[in-house]
């Protein structure tokens, strides 16, 4: 067996920041990025001088299509006072943020830099939904994957249908993922949907009442999720609340060499495993119910970290669609293939369960500003491992994981984190 790959030296996270995620008509990527940077500055216990940063790695999917702005990284760096340092944009669609972290990690582990700013940013809400759908479809293989009219929800819907066909997964399992993540998001003040599904039901009823329209009645969250009016089909079998929203947002991380981590904080969070994989476009894959790029990434990360799926105490996974969370918990080895739906039924991935997944609300409720999402996941894990996650804190967690997927699994990146005191 080949020896597990190791980092050249230890790397730790000493601060994180995040803008509020949501729809902000008056803000651009740079405004959001500055907001995240200011938040990061507050989070470094012993303080730090932004002049000490040596390089920036910025995840961004397509400010080109969303804002007509290319060459995003040097602009972000400029707006947070980092000229003339190197600033590089990482674009791997929805995995841009996670892979920006990996590039920053590799740069420090190589010895080239000691202090790196990793960021992610996306401003999606400028365009009408139809044009956002077109821009997202550009993340697919435009010649052979999305050319026939398959949208992003459509591509994930084909995986959902394949999972249903193979394992007997039901639409209700998908809905339960959404209900869980919205319950978590309701406890996250920075989430786009800082609301449970029950809260959303009540707000829709209130709106109808105010407008003098007939007030819809739903017995419970599940009856709302099954209602074509409350939760319309987008790409059968996926409905609106199976899909992550269109989001504006930014997040960033201060990454430093392990040996200087305690100059910044009493409680550094070490990155103990990293892995990344790639795959063909979806139609060409032998396996349509799991993501090979993620299985590859997870294997590398577990081997490097010297831990296994059972050791992970909290995870943020890429639930761009509810089916993606079910595949994630199977691909990461938390549950055997096909048993994700049973785990959801039994509540095993809830905040009180043995394997808490997406305590932040996930992409579903927290929001999915594409290039920022992978970095936003790290923000949550940092706070969870340091006991700073407020009402959504999972007690006593020390080892966490992030799982970030590009497109339909064309790329995947997994990181494992440990708090050491």
């Amino acid at each position, binding site marked *: 067996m080949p020896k597990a790959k190791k980092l050249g030296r230890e790397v730790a996270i000493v601060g994180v920041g995040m803008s509020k995620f949501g729809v902000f008509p008056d803000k651009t990527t740079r405004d959001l990025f500055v907001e995240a940077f200011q938040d990061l500055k507050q989070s470094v216990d012993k303080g730090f001088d932004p002049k000490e940063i040596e390089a920036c790695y910025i995840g961004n999917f397509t400010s080109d299509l969303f804002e007509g702005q290319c060459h995003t990284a040097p602009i972000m760096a400029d707006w947070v006072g980092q000229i003339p340092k190197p600033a590089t944009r990482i674009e791997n669609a929805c995995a841009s943020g996670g892979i920006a972290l990996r590039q920053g990690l590799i740069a420090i582990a190589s010895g080239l830099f000691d202090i790196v700013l990793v960021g992610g940013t996306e401003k999606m809400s400028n365009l009408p939904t139809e044009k956002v759908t077109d821009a997202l479809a550009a993340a697919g293989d435009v010649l*052979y994957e999305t050319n026939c009219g*398959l*949208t992003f929800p459509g591509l994930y819907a084909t995986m*959902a249908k394949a999972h249903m066909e193979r394992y007997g997964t039901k639409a209700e399992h998908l809905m339960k993922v959404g209900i869980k993540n919205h319950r978590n998001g309701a406890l996250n003040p920075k989430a786009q949907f800082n609301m449970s599904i029950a809260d959303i039901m009540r707000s829709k009823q209130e709106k109808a009442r105010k407008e003098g329209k007939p007030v819809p009645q739903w017995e419970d969250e599940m009856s709302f999720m099954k209602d074509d009016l409350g939760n319309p089909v987008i790409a*059968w079998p996926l409905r609106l609340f199976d899909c992550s929203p269109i989001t504006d947002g930014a997040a960033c991380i201060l990454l430093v060499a392990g040996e200087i981590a305690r100059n910044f904080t009493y409680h550094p969070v070490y990155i103990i495993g990293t892995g990344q994989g790639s795959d063909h476009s979806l139609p060409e894959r032998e396996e349509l119910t799991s993501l090979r790029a993620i299985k590859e990434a997870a294997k590398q990360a577990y081997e490097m970290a010297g831990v296994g799926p059972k050791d992970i105490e909290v995870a943020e996974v890429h639930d761009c669609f509810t089916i993606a969370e079910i595949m994630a918990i199977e691909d990461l080895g938390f549950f055997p293939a096909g048993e994700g739906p049973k785990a959801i039924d039994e509540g095993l991935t809830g905040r009180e369960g043995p394997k808490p997944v997406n305590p932040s609300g996930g992409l579903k409720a927290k929001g999915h500003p594409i290039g920022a999402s992978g970095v936003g996941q790290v923000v949550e894990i940092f706070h969870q491992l340091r006991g700073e996650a407020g009402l959504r804190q999972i007690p006593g967690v020390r080892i966490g994981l992030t799982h970030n997927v590009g497109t339909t699994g064309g790329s995947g990146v997994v990181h494992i984190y440990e708090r050491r005191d």
Partner: protein
Amino acid sequence: MGFSSAEFYNYLEGKKFMGTRCKACGKVYLPPRPICIECFSERMEWVELSGKGRLLTFTCISVGPSFMVELGHDRKNPYCCGIVKLAEGPQVSGQILGVNPKEPEKIKVGSLVKVEFLKKDEGEKKRYWLGFKVEG
């Protein structure tokens, strides 16, 4: 003749459904690849595909991209897309025809399908894509 995507779409324009085959190891590719990614041979040839296959999975889309909206598709008029495994081995995505996208529960995975050549507009906006019609 190059083994390019442009050439593949030229063939589609002439209603020919073509893939490439590696002369060294015999592997058939769709999308047509210019080199074999199994044995790395450059000795490729175009082969016409039967266009017959089976439906592996599908979805019925209510919120489509601009070109499908222009074709009149919306929440009230969804369309079906799926992934097809061809008789020659490769798998490909396409629009699925001969089904009622308003009744996805009645569409059967495993159905036999046959290729159709779909086209929209002329000139710069001209667009070709693959369709597969469910047989019987």
